[in-house]
């Protein structure tokens, strides 16, 4: 089966060109539109449906950076389904402390100090993540498709899961400012 990058005739990259992705999505949406196959035989109609679904999945993945990171890692056999990946204890400790900080905010959402402390802590974690990952994904985009580089990226992929989880947690009780 073709992968999403092959389908869209794009180079494998963590940052595919947004305009090109959209262009290909619309082009393939037209090509495989069910209306064009209304008179076709069953097998051709089924194939058109399959391609339309594949195109939708490709677009969703290529336009979502988190989903795309997982997809590329899987494409290179670096990620298993429900993989149990161990991050170092100091990172888990940091996530524990960050969660505790969020708890203080959760207990008293009207407290401006607790709010800014918690949100600044998580925002700074995300900024740090971006800064550290950018040079790695850039090396990959420029053609360095090595397992060593991908396993470094994989580590960050899992770290981000914890940050996203905390962000999600804040969203359950915080009212947008």
């Amino acid at each position, binding site marked *: 089966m073709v992968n999403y990058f092959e389908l869209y005739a794009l180079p494998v990259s963590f940052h595919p060109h947004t305009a090109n992705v959209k262009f290909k999505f619309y082009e393939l949406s037209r090509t495989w539109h069910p209306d064009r196959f209304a008179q076709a035989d069953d097998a051709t109609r089924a194939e058109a449906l399959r391609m339309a679904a594949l195109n939708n999945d490709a677009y969703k993945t290529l336009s979502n950076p988190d989903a795309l990171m997982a997809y590329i890692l899987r494409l290179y056999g670096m990620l298993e389904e429900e*993989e*149990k990946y161990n*991050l170092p*204890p100091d990172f888990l400790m940091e996530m*524990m402390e960050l969660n505790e900080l969020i708890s203080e905010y959760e207990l008293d959402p009207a407290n401006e100090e607790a709010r800014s402390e918690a949100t600044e802590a998580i925002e700074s974690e995300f900024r740090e993540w971006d800064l550290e990952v950018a040079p790695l994904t850039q090396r990959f985009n420029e053609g360095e498709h090595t397992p060593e580089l991908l396993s470094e990226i994989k580590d960050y992929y899992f770290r981000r*899961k*914890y*940050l*996203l989880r905390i962000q999600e947690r804040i969203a359950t009780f915080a009212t947008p400012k």
Partner: protein
Amino acid sequence: MAYSDKVIDHYQNPKNVGTLDKSKNNVGTGLVGAPECGDVMRLQIEVDEESGLIKDAKFKTFGCGSAIASSSLATEWLKGKTVDQALAIDNMDIVEELNLPPVKIHCSVLAEDAIKAAINDYRVKNGLPELTLEQKPH
């Protein structure tokens, strides 16, 4: 998905939430995380040096209801057991007690991992060899 009454009870009234003094030699601390969902769990045991029994257990979990319930139940079970008995606690016992659905089994695995990590920390502090643990998929 509906949680079982037992999960809801542990979630609403978690037992043994808190912290033990991790600098003490008879306290073992396990810190584990579930990478797929981003849950973090800390579980601690305090061993009575005379009797060898676990006299206290505490946890703090940031995660879903099942993860909180699994660790709450684990601390309840740990108290009064020897370290070797504690080692025998299997995640499937937790699944059964809490009626966890298949999609939440990984929460019980996380609790089992936390118990074993706490025991290992205790063992290392007391000059015992670290145990190699079988890796269960989350």
